[in-house]
C-alpha cells in the first residue's frame, strides 16, 4: 500500500477531511461552452471569511487544499488567500486558466510554495481553444502563463477536457505539455450544470471517440490491461466506499455552501451559519453519504464492473439517486471493456447522447 493510500485510510478512520476544494469565486474571464457553473459574483466570500474558513479547515485536519473557481486570479485578494493558506501549511493546488498570470505572479506563486497548478487547455489550435473559451487570444495567453509558471519552477498540469468540438486534438495538447515541461491529464466527462441544466451534455464525446481514446496507448499505457474485462468481486470491494466525496474530502462554494464534492450538488450546510467542524461531523446529508458502501448500490452491486468502475456518486445523484448508477460511468465501463454494465442491462443507465447502442437509451439526464 502506498503512503498516500495509507494516508487516506488513516484519514478515513479518524474522520478527517483530508482534502478540501474551495472555489473562491464563480466569476470568470472565459465563458467555456461546457462549463457547469453560473458566473455570478454576488455575495461571494470576503477575505476575512476565507481566512477564517481556511483556519477551520486546517484545525479539522485538512491537508490538501484546491483553490479554484471561476477564475481565482480575478479576486483582488488572490495572493493573500494563497499566502495565508501556505502559512497554514496546506498542500495547495491551484486551478486557473492562466490567462492573467504574469511573470511576477508566477514568481509569487512559486515563492508561496504552491504545490501544483492545473491549467485547462482544450486544443493546440487557437481557433478551437478560443471558440470553446469564447475569449479571443486565450490559448496564446494561457500558454504564455504556463511558460512563465514553468520558468518560475512551478509544477504545471495541462488538463484537457475532451468533447465533440476538440475530439481530435488531444495529441496536440499532449505535445504542448511535453514542449512546456508540463504534465498532461485528460478528462472525457462533461457534467450537468450545478443548477441541474443538462443541456451541455450534448457536448460529450460520442461513444466512438471515447472508445478510441480508451485504446490509445499514449493515453492509457497498456491497452490490454486498461481494457481488460473486470476482475472478480470480493467482500473487500463490496464493503468499500464508492468514492472519497464526503468521507475524506469536500467542496466549499464561493457562497460558503459545503457539498461532498464539486460534482455532487447535495447541500450539507453553510459556513456562514455553522462551523466547518459542526457540518463535517453532524450534517445529515454527509452522514447519509458516508453510510453508503458498495454493497448498498442496488443496481451496481450485481454489476461485474463494481470493483473497477469510475462511478461518480455525484453524477448518480444528479440523475436522481445517489445509490444508483451513473450513466456516464456505465458507458465508460462498457466502452472500455466491451462488457455491458448492470445499469445498462437494467435499462437505467446509458447516456442519451451515446450513439453506440441506441436501443439501450432509457433515460434523459
Amino acid at each position, binding site marked *: 500500500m502506498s*503512503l*498516500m493510500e*495509507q*494516508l487516506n485510510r*488513516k*484519514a478515513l478512520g*479518524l474522520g*478527517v477531511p483530508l482534502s478540501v476544494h474551495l472555489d473562491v469565486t464563480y466569476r470568470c474571464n472565459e465563458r467555456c461552452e461546457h462549463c457547469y457553473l453560473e458566473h455570478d459574483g454576488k455575495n461571494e466570500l470576503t477575505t476575512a471569511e476565507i481566512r477564517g474558513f481556511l483556519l477551520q479547515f*486546517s*484545525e479539522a*485536519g*485538512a*491537508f490538501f487544499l484546491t483553490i479554484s473557481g471561476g477564475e481565482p486570479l480575478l479576486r483582488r485578494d488572490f495572493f493573500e488567500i494563497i499566502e495565508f493558506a*501556505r*502559512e*497554514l*501549511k*496546506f*498542500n*495547495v493546488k491551484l486551478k486557473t486558466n492562466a490567462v492573467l498570470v504574469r511573470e511576477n505572479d508566477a514568481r509569487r506563486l512559486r515563492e508561496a*510554495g*504552491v*504545490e501544483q497548478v492545473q491549467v485547462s487547455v482544450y486544443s493546440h489550435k487557437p481557433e478551437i481553444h478560443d471558440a470553446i473559451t469564447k475569449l479571443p487570444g486565450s490559448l496564446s495567453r494561457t500558454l504564455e502563463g504556463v511558460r512563465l509558471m514553468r520558468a518560475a519552477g512551478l*509544477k504545471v498540469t495541462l488538463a484537457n477536457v475532451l468533447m465533440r468540438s476538440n475530439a481530435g486534438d488531444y495529441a496536440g495538447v499532449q505535445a504542448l505539455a511535453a514542449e512546456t515541461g508540463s504534465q498532461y491529464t485528460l478528462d472525457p466527462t462533461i457534467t450537468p450544470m450545478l443548477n441541474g441544466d443538462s443541456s451541455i451534455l450534448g457536448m460529450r464525446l460520442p461513444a466512438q471517440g471515447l472508445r478510441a481514446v480508451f485504446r490509445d496507448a499514449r493515453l492509457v499505457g497498456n491497452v490490454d490491461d486498461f481494457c481488460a474485462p473486470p476482475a472478480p468481486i470480493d467482500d473487500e470491494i463490496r464493503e468499500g466506499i464508492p468514492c472519497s466525496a464526503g468521507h475524506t474530502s469536500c467542496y466549499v462554494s464561493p457562497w460558503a455552501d459545503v457539498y461532498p464534492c464539486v460534482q455532487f450538488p447535495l447541500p450539507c450546510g453553510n459556513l456562514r451559519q455553522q462551523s466547518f467542524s459542526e457540518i463535517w461531523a453532524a450534517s445529515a446529508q454527509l452522514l447519509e453519504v458516508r453510510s453508503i458502501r458498495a454493497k448498498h448500490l442496488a443496481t451496481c452491486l450485481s454489476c461485474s464492473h463494481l470493483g473497477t468502475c469510475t462511478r461518480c456518486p455525484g453524477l448518480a445523484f444528479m440523475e436522481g439517486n445517489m445509490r444508483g448508477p451513473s450513466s456516464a460511468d456505465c458507458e465508460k465501463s462498457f466502452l472500455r471493456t466491451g462488457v455491458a454494465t448492470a445499469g445498462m442491462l437494467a435499462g437505467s443507465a446509458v447516456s442519451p447522447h451515446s450513439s453506440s447502442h441506441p436501443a439501450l437509451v432509457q433515460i434523459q439526464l
Partner: protein
Amino acid sequence: MKECYVARSRTVAARQLGEEMVIMSAVDSTLFNLNPVAALIWQAADGKTPLAKIVEERICPVFDVEPGEALRDAEQFVTELAAHGILLLAESPILDPSAATDKTP
C-alpha cells in the same frame, strides 16, 4: 556531529494526523509520515534550540530512550529530512524567521 540547529523549511506542507505528522516537500513532492517521536522533533525545530536540547527536553522525558541513542537517531532523522529540503540544518542558530514560523494546528 557538531552543535546542530534545525528549522522547518517554509516550502513544505504539513499537518498533524492523529499522533503522526504528514509532510510533503514542495521541492520533489515526496510525502513523509512522521511517527510521534519524529513529529515532536519537527514541531520543536524552531531554528533556535539545539537538537541536543530538543532531544533532552522533548523526547527523553516522554519516551523511554537512552539520551545518547536518542540523539544519534535524531541526527540521522534530521539529516535525512534535510536531504529532501524538509528541514534546514546549521551549526549556528537559524535566524530566518520565515523558516521558523509555523501555524500548523
